[in-house]
């Protein structure tokens, strides 16, 4: 038993810290720490900085431009980034499509699409969920019919996708589509890459409860997609989608985000007064904070245990479901406590204060402007990426054998 990082890992951590100190723009870090909304340009700027360092696609194999890190390095990188106020890497191209192309794409597709993900030339979004297929992805209804005409082989796509995160920024979408209507549920689904600028693609914003525009609906009406945009084999898309669900999710607990949020909470609780005493001295509030702090300390070790098992050659299967459930619960609880700490000042909602450049004096604590909006926004954590209930189904089936 040894809970310490090796000297090499500590040296690596120092490198990451130095990089963040020198390269993470203070303006962006400030927005992240303040819980303000990031623009497309902010995210592109950060991606470009990471890519220049060779750290953007940090779990891709070296041959495709990855840095060749193991699970421990990735954990250290993710944690340090979060602590420094680095934005989350937009996952759709780098974390989701990239690994699928590397494993199942043909040489042409890899050579064409992978560099464009790294360079930011393409901004990808994810076309999995449909109005009738949320957690139950296998019931996708969007169809793709293969046709041949004078311009070559194509698919004609019809249907609707939803919850398309940051689709308004995207020029490309990877979709699960039904190519065989006779086949049962999981078979008959294909994995297709669609240009968002094709005729027949229409994007409509969905306004979420925090007033933000983060997700969208995407409608497809007789959209013509070149047959070469099919990834892998026709009707095997479910295999590729499932691969993504088990691919390298040791970072899913978001330990770094939790630690950063807890540090923020502690600063607030030491400053906000109730009955002339810091909130941190209020027995009930202190107990809520201590409970989540202990849970987080335990989860850090649980996460490192899973990582150590992976480093030793194991495969993180359903263990990542445990990390997802508890990691999201902890982060949601901390955000909830930050909201509570604001007292009545959590109520006023100034939309402009969610963005950079708002210069009016704060109503109450400086964090009050974003506390409630962030709390509501992050209710998504336990819903997306396979809801926490779906994760329990996975644990039940894969670990418990029930």
């Amino acid at each position: 038993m040894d809970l310490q990082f090796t000297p090499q890992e500590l040296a690596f951590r120092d490198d990451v810290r130095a990089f963040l100190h020198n390269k993470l723009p203070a303006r962006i870090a400030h927005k992240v720490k303040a819980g303000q909304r990031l623009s497309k340009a902010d995210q592109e700027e950060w991606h470009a900085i990471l890519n220049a360092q060779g750290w953007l696609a940090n779990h891709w194999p070296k041959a495709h431009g990855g840095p060749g890190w193991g699970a421990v390095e990735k954990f250290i990188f993710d944690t340090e980034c979060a602590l420094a106020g680095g934005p989350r890497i937009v996952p759709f191209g780098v974390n989701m499509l990239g690994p699928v192309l590397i494993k199942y794409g043909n040489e042409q597709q890899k050579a064409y699409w992978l560099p464009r993900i790294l360079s930011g030339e393409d901004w990808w979004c994810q076309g999995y969920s449909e109005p009738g297929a949320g957690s139950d992805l296998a019931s996708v209804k969007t169809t793709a019919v293969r046709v041949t005409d004078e311009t070559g082989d194509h698919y004609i796509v019809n249907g609707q996708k939803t919850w398309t995160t940051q689709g308004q920024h995207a020029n490309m979408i990877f979709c699960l589509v039904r190519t065989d209507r006779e086949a049962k549920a999981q078979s008959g689904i294909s994995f297709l890459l669609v240009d968002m600028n094709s005729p027949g693609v229409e994007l409509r914003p969905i306004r979420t409860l925090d007033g933000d525009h983060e997700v969208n609906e995407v409608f497809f009406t007789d959209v013509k997609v070149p047959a070469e945009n099919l990834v892998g084999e026709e009707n095997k898309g479910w295999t590729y989608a499932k691969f993504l669900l088990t691919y390298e999710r040791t970072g899913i607990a978001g330990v770094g985000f939790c630690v950063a949020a807890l540090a923020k909470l502690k600063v607030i609780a030491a400053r906000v007064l109730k009955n002339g005493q810091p909130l941190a001295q209020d027995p009930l509030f202190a107990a809520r904070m201590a409970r989540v702090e202990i849970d987080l300390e335990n989860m850090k070790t649980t996460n490192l245990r899973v990582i150590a098992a992976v480093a030793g050659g194991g495969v993180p299967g359903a263990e990542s479901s445990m990390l997802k459930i508890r990691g999201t619960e902890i982060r949601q609880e901390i955000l909830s406590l930050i909201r509570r700490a604001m007292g009545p000042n959590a109520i006023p909602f100034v939309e402009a204060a969610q963005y950079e450049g708002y210069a009016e004096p704060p109503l109450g604590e400086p964090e009050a402007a974003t506390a409630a909006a962030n709390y509501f926004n992050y209710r998504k954590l336990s819903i997306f990426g396979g809801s926490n209930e779906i994760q329990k189904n996975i644990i039940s089936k894969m670990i418990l054998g029930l």
Partner: protein
Amino acid sequence: MNFQHTEDRRMLADSLNRYLLENNSIERRHASAEGIFGYSKTLYAGLGELGAIGALFPEDAGGFGGTGFDVSVVFECLGRNLAVEPLLGALVVGQALVAAGTEAQRAHLEVIMAGSTVAALAHDEPGSHYEPSHVATTAQRSATGWVLNGTKAVVPVGDSADLLLVSARTSGSTQDDDGISLFLVPGTAVGLSKRGNGRIDGGRTAELTLAHVAVGADALLGTEGQGLAVLERISGYALLALASESLGAMDVAKDQTLEYLRTRKQFGVPIGSFQALQHRMADLLLEVEQARSAVINAAAAVDETDRITREKALSAAKYSVGRIGTLVAEESIQMHGGIGMTWELPLSHYAKRLVMIDHQFGDEDHHLARFIALGHAVDVDMAEA
């Protein structure tokens, strides 16, 4: 970073588990727990022979372990096998001897490790409710040593222990931190009366009344009036030991409940096919893994020299197993249904042990409050710096 135990510790765990499996069947365990001593003298001596007690102490004290992970491995095995043998007393009294004993006092270590002397900590008092500095028992100097008066509550195997470590006040008043001293008192001392009871989770405890118990000057362990620091140190080992024991018992309760979900049929199907139960079982698994992490953190921390870091991790672990152990116990009984309520089912005894661990050396609430107070101590230090 490595979460595997060393080969030596794995071998120790294997031999302990095998020995207990062969010699501590649930029937024999009940017989021991309900016997006059509340444990089996034969089994305890056997554990001593196997090195289970020696593993709790460092080499310079005559043992062959003594690190947090050694303690953890031993007590996890005891928890798995629901053993009632008094190793906790050996650990805390032995560690007190290691920390503060004179050469002559440390001579007790050899017989403690052999399992031939049974030691017990007599610290809690009626009304102390986990508060370590609550000591009303007094020790007054006499011509030849000390005279002790007072009452000690819920002393494990207190009615038959050979060697008692008694806390008593040599100055100050009941709640003071200063003025607590520790004394080694033989179980046969004149003036010591014992009211023995069975425990709801098996084994025995006793309320001890000390009426003019005279001991020699050499009975004082450590510095007069400075016993609280030693008590904190040895309680730290107890917290780790109990957390590890709890983890071992949780694993068994969880496995037995899972097996029941797979085999018990209602409405023509295994009850484990019902999502309501699947999700509760998934929650249980997740919580048990969090408890395992808490125990690992505590085992790594018990040898830590920075007091706040060490004590926070130990309280975090005891809080965690207090909360999670109780949850595992309640959920296991509930998911078993009526059969979970029976004495006949071994699970019910695991459940009782899990809940009663929360009543030893401070419960969930006590350690949450302690964790918070320790954190405030850091904040104050930082503010003053």
